[in-house]
């Protein structure tokens, strides 16, 4: 067993490795990361994960639900550290896995992977407490500076691969005429939600989101306001139109970034030009990518966080169109249901820290994108309304008597409601990529009974 494998075994058991090994690990990781571009290219299949925040046992649960490394390819969108009790164990394990299986795991930077933020939000304190000095914190911060800013997933299939999963008792199919058996024909299905026991909780068919048929798009997550799974209409109103009638099963690329977009970045190539090897600045493109949030607004808005910006549906749709993206996956915001698709499924928030901070009561999610090649030759039925006609997609069709507002239903009880950012010209939609099939696995916090209490209570200095 190599030293690295030993370290992995130790960390998997939630035990720390010695400081000199951390130094060595961080050195190796930096050598590896320095070779990566600001936007890492990643091939599907891949499982995309959101914030972890030091919730080590929940990270283990994530691996149990999503499959272990290296059997499953992972892409973690940052915020490994701060707030939780096990930021060190979590980050060092991920780093070990990165060094051990560099092609199987991708780590990109979150806004918490920063010197200034970690001194405020806990990781620095944790390092002092667990190693007795700031050395390990310093090593980790040097790694943070080399983490990529984003990833571009290509080769994701538009269709979901069939699985052996069974239906959960609470399963809700969006098509009432279907009998409750696992579908064998996944051609229509672009979202499937599974629980931690590999049971299917719900499915959403593309045609359900046809603007003519759907009036209650899913806001994301698997359940509605009352906690029951929502039946109809996934993720926006019409993000399903074929890309100009193309027969390709290529879902278009998926950009993964921790926070979101920046007013200074209109193409992915501009991200590639940034000098990322530094502490996260307080403003500018690099800062925005790690700090911004999508919101139900038009254009850009100031962020209540004091860093980054808010951006609306129009911004996302423009950006995706211009960069030939079908979807942006990002993290950065707690969502009670683990994931949340917005703006007609052009952007999704993935959150992977269940019962955040021991109290938020949320479930976590990971997003699996399948590989296009696995479906090669698969003949899609081509007769669905709204798909074969190549409707101008992302927006609801302005129908007589049905204003766009009536079809949105995206206001999250915020009293704003004007989601979608208004209608955008049809021509903008031409060539829009069909979103990849999305399989979300949601899971709850890991059981807590097996965790050992520390024998010693370090005396806090105020109480000496």
């Amino acid at each position: 067993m190599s030293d690295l494998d030993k370290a992995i075994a130790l960390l998997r058991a939630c035990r720390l490795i010695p400081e000199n090994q951390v130094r060595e690990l961080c050195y190796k990781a930096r050598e590896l990361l320095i070779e990566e571009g600001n936007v890492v290219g990643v091939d599907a299949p891949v499982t995309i994960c959101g914030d972890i925040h030091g919730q080590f046992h929940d990270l283990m649960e994530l691996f149990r639900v999503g499959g272990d490394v290296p059997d499953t390819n992972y892409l973690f969108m940052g915020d490994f550290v701060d707030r939780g009790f096990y930021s060190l164990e979590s980050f060092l394990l991920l780093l070990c896995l990165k060094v051990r299986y560099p092609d199987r795991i991708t780590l990109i930077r979150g806004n918490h992977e920063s010197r200034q933020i970690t001194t405020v939000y806990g990781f620095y304190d944790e390092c002092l407490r667990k190693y007795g000095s700031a050395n390990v914190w310093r090593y980790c911060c040097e790694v943070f500076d080399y983490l990529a800013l984003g990833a571009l997933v290509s080769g994701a299939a538009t269709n979901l691969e069939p699985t052996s999963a069974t239906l959960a008792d609470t399963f809700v199919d969006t098509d009432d005429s279907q009998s409750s058996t696992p579908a064998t024909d996944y051609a229509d299905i672009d979202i499937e939600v599974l629980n931690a026991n590999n049971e299917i909780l719900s499915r959403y068919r593309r045609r359900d989101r046809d603007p003519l048929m759907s009036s209650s798009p899913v806001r994301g997550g698997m359940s509605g306001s009352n906690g029951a799974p929502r039946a109809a209409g996934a993720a926006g109103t019409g993000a399903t139109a074929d890309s100009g009638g193309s027969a390709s099963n290529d879902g278009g690329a998926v950009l993964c970034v921790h926070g979101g977009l920046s007013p200074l970045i209109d193409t992915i190539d501009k991200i590639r030009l940034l000098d990322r090897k530094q502490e996260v600045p307080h403003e500018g493109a690099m800062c925005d990518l790690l700090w911004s949030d999508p919101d139900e607004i038009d254009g850009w808005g100031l962020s209540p966080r004091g860093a980054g910006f808010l951006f609306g549906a129009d911004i996302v749709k423009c950006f995706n169109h211009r960069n030939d993206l079908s979807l942006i996956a990002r993290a950065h915001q707690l969502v009670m249901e683990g994931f949340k698709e917005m703006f007609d499924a052009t952007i999704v928030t993935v959150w992977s820290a269940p019962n955040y901070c021991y109290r938020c009561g949320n479930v976590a999610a990971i997003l699996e994108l399948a590989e296009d090649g696995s479906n090669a030759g698969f003949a899609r039925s081509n007769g669905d309304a709204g798909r074969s006609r190549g409707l101008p997609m992302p927006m609801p069709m302005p129908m007589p008597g049905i204003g766009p507002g009536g079809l949105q239903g995206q206001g999250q009880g915020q009293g704003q409601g004007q989601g979608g950012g208004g209608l955008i010209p049809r021509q903008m939609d031409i060539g829009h990529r069909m979103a990849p099939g999305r399989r979300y696995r949601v899971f709850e916090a890991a059981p807590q009974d097996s965790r050992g209490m520390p024998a010693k209570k370090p005396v806090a200095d105020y109480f000496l």
Partner: protein
Amino acid sequence: MSRRTLARLDPAAAHAFAPPVKRIHDGDDVSFFLGSTAYADIMTFIFQLNAAMFPQKSADPGAPAQVWRLGDQDRDDDFGPSVAGLRGLLAELEAFIAEAPPDPGPRRFGNVSFRAWYELVISRAASLLDKYLPARALSFGKDESTASSKTELQAYFLGSFGSAQRLDYGTGHELSFLAFLGCLWKFGVFPEDDPGVQERAIVLGVFEPYLRLVRKLILTYTLEPAGSHGVWGLDDHFFLPYIFGSAQLSPAISSAEEIPPEGSVANAPKPADVAKASAVERERKSNMYFSAIGFIYDVKKGPFWEHSPILFDISGVKAGWAKINKGMLKMYNAEVLSKFPVVQHFPFGSLFAWEKDPAAMPPAASAHTTSQPQARQNVDGQSAARHPAGAQMQGGTRAPWAPGGAADHTAWAGATPTSRVPAQSTALLPTRAPWAAGNSTALPTAPGSRPQGPRGTAAGQPGVPQTRAPWAAGSGAGGQHS
């Protein structure tokens, strides 16, 4: 040598009130604050309340000490009219919850109906104060100036219940309520009495019900811990109950001058009991420290040592509750009052004044030299290591961001923490509703060619457990403070 109680104003003397305004804009302002009369008054008031919560030695040497437990007095007629009025005020605020039931609709985290509740408070604040406060407080020193006693009272009152914009609550709001009570003290609302009597009435009769109200607000509207440090904060929302509650369990004293540095009153629960659910359940009824811990048990799932490691560590203190009390006071000074993100929006008027305190010559802080333990004289060489980011990023210039700037001044203030145990912090609410027109339309333009925020965007953002930039001004939409 120092004031042991907050001075009451002379009702016969003229007093010029001033609308409280924000004064703290950067780290230098925090250091000025730590030498201001406002700071001295806050610390004096806290020490005064704290000392009163220590058990009292009996005049008869053989008799047991008198301890001050929650619940021993908990009816309105256990108290004088002023305290009873404040209890009525809090009860009415609680009743507003029925008028603003939590929104059942989907949400990310915080419940937007908290804004409706808060709007009720704002719209009724003036009449509520008229109804429940003694006339003495409202007509105090009335003259023709632009502000009245009520102006100042209302500022601190409205800052006490969390941020409607961000749907969060933290120690900045807790501090605001303390200041509200401090104003009332200065007006002589709490009558002259034997030492400690009025103070205990304030803590047990008003402050604890205030905490109960806020806990109910937190649960009802899932208010987010402001600027949450996750497990690395003392408590997600509160600090003062740990001070007053540890005093309740400390050794008995005969006067505030003889506060012991360590020890516990007879039959006190052990500090280690905080990790035992059954002991917490028993003690929370009578003790504020355990009451606060009990609330953590209510809202958090998981092992106590894991979700509350700071409190768990403190439970290992061997030298008793007086030692814990002393540490809590030091920690409050360093982690709440000295932190820019917490105090930056504390408004200053005539009662908590933005004036240099002549008694506060560095390095000694005036107010707490008697009961505050001797300040530790150095930071064990850890100063640089503890603020590495600040050191590296700020260089020689004084940046207006929170952590380095504010904390660097704790040594100057006389209390020098040697570990960075972050208390929960939040910006204090301005006196006006955050969504009020003036606030959201006055969004500053982002620097350079960056886009300007559209009107009112941030107002629709529910408060979620999200990270705010520590260098930001903290008040939501106005965060880009330059």
